[in-house]
């Protein structure tokens, strides 16, 4: 035992640490296998992806990514030979299967929709959330607890139950299948999280800063702008990422309320099919591209994660 841990009578023994470490590492490795499998499948050829037994070692191919971004038509070998030399990696890959690229697939527009709707709704939710959180944190609002509960309770509603009247309402207002409709809806869902999280963050900023600023002649609004906001940047950034992840991952509303122009990636990815069933390498490629931003955000967020998933209830 090292000298530092000898002070404490309750420090875990070296053996128990080793056992714990082994079990955790094993669990982590097993739980990450499905994700590694998605990643691996995205670089397989369709025949490799459905081989039995499942192939762990394989010749990597970009066919999944090519299929994800393009639509293809089957042609006779004579026709393909009559075309000039292949113009790119994808062209070459596709020709080996007696096909030619007919045009771009819908993946890019769906991915862009996801970006627009996720960022648009995050911006609105964080903007409204910051104002409300400041209001609840600094002023005596009548019925504040009831209002805060009301705000939280809107998040507890089952999405399908909300979707029924929203579907009818959007049909009347012409908001069905529009990015604006989805942004409004996701803002409403996310604003509850934003208010609760940001209230926690703003509560932690001492009031003395604003009071000092106001004694110096700032108005309340200026004090909010110049002293509170700069100090709440970390909290606002963390909240924004949580809102972004929710909007990015959301499926139920998107599947029921969008079908074409405003459809996001989550309802689109499962519909990617090839000849004779689901084109798993292409699905895996779409899934990989879709998941990578979230992986990056998870690593950035890991210190704030606990707070985000409990609506600010647990702060470590």
């Amino acid at each position, binding site marked *: 035992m090292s000298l530092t841990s000898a002070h404490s009578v309750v420090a875990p023994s070296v053996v128990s640490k080793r056992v714990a470490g082994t079990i955790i590492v094993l669990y982590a490795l097993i739980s990450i296998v499905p994700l590694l499998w998605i990643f691996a499948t995205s670089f397989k050829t369709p025949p490799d992806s459905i081989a039995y037994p499942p192939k762990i070692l394989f010749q990597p191919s970009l066919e999944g990514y090519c299929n994800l971004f393009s639509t293809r038509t089957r042609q006779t070998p004579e026709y393909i030979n009559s075309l000039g030399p292949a113009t790119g990696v994808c062209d070459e890959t596709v020709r080996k299967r007696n096909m030619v690229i007919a045009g771009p697939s819908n993946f890019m527009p769906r991915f862009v929709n996801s970006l627009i709707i996720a960022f648009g709704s995050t911006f609105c939710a964080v903007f409204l959330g910051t104002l409300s959180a400041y209001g609840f944190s600094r002023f005596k609002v009548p019925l504040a607890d009831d209002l805060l509960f009301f705000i939280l309770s809107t998040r507890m*509603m*089952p999405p399908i139950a909300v979707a029924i009247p929203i579907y009818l309402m959007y049909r009347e207002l012409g908001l069905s299948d529009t990015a604006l409709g989805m942004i409004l809806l996701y803002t409403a869902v996310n604003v509850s999280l934003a208010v609760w999280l940001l209230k926690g963050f703003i509560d932690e900023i001492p009031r003395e800063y604003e009071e000092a600023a106001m004694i110096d002649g700032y108005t309340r609004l200026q004090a909010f702008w110049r002293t509170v906001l700069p100090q709440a940047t970390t909290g606002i950034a963390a909240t924004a990422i949580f809102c972004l992840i929710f909007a990015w991952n959301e499926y139920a509303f998107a599947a029921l309320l969008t079908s074409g122009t405003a459809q996001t990636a989550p309802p689109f990815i499962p519909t990617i099919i090839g000849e004779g069933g689901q084109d798993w390498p292409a699905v895996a490629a779409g899934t990989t591209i879709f998941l990578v931003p979230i992986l990056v955000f998870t690593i950035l967020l890991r210190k704030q994660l606990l707070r985000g998933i409990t609506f600010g209830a647990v702060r470590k």
Partner: protein
Amino acid sequence: MTEAGLTMLNRTADSVARATPEPLARKVRGISDKGLAWLFISPTILLLLAINIFPLFWAIYLSFTNYRANRPNEMVKNVGLANYRRILGDQDIWIAMQTTAHFVFWTILLQTLIGFTLAWLIDRKFRGHAFWTTIILVPMMLSPAVVGNFWRFLYEPQIGLFAYAISFVTGIPATQIGMLSNVSLAPWSIVIVDTWMWTPYVMLICLAGLRSIPEYIYEAAEVDRASNWRQFWSITLPMALPFIMLAVLFRGIENFKMFDMVNLLTGGGPGSTTEVASITLKRQAFESWRTGYSSAFAIILFVAVFGLANIYVKALNKVKQR
């Protein structure tokens, strides 16, 4: 400046402030605090009223009618409580509620047991524990829909990795492990994916609970020669309990409304063996287009979730008080 000078200055400031009429003083300092508070809060409340509360009341109204969204021009008839009565007597609804209960019970049990154990092990603070914790946390951040969709591939009887791994361990031929097609296995297929995704969530909250226990309590127990077993039952578990409860309630509410992962993994099938409440609701509302009937079911689910939410907030406050 001398002390007397300062007092003089303060007095002058006071008298100027007193001399200024109230409304003007307010204008000088900008908007009043009360005005500002409402200016800041009302946009959020208005948005929630428009997107959440107004539709809710609309749904309540619809639940008393025979409205069908695919026939918007048909006369809407008031049917009173008939929809509610039909739901409570509907065999399919009760089966869906049982399926939901099975799903919620087993996911919570497994996630709490595994999640707490993992947290308890991570709390030993072995070398590299922070890194491995982050790895474990990854599944819960991903889109349940997109990942649920991919699990269909993993569950494929012959070519799927899951079936292969199970057959490798148990010796059962991989072709016979039809997780999604076998009526008795399908309800477990959704439990497995949900447990895989959300155990990290329970683990993270439990870890916070374990870390909130001050070390001196264990030191005192050690002095009293309490056994490790005794320490676990008398200190660790009771002190982490509010956190475990918080995790359980949160998962309970989330899984009660579960839709995305199940919809893409099984779509409620085979037959209706994995048809949880939200899937039934979707089938009634957006496939059979029984809008009035499904609104009534939605209201019943609302009330149930609202009850759970109430308990949740109370528990949450208890945890906060510590």
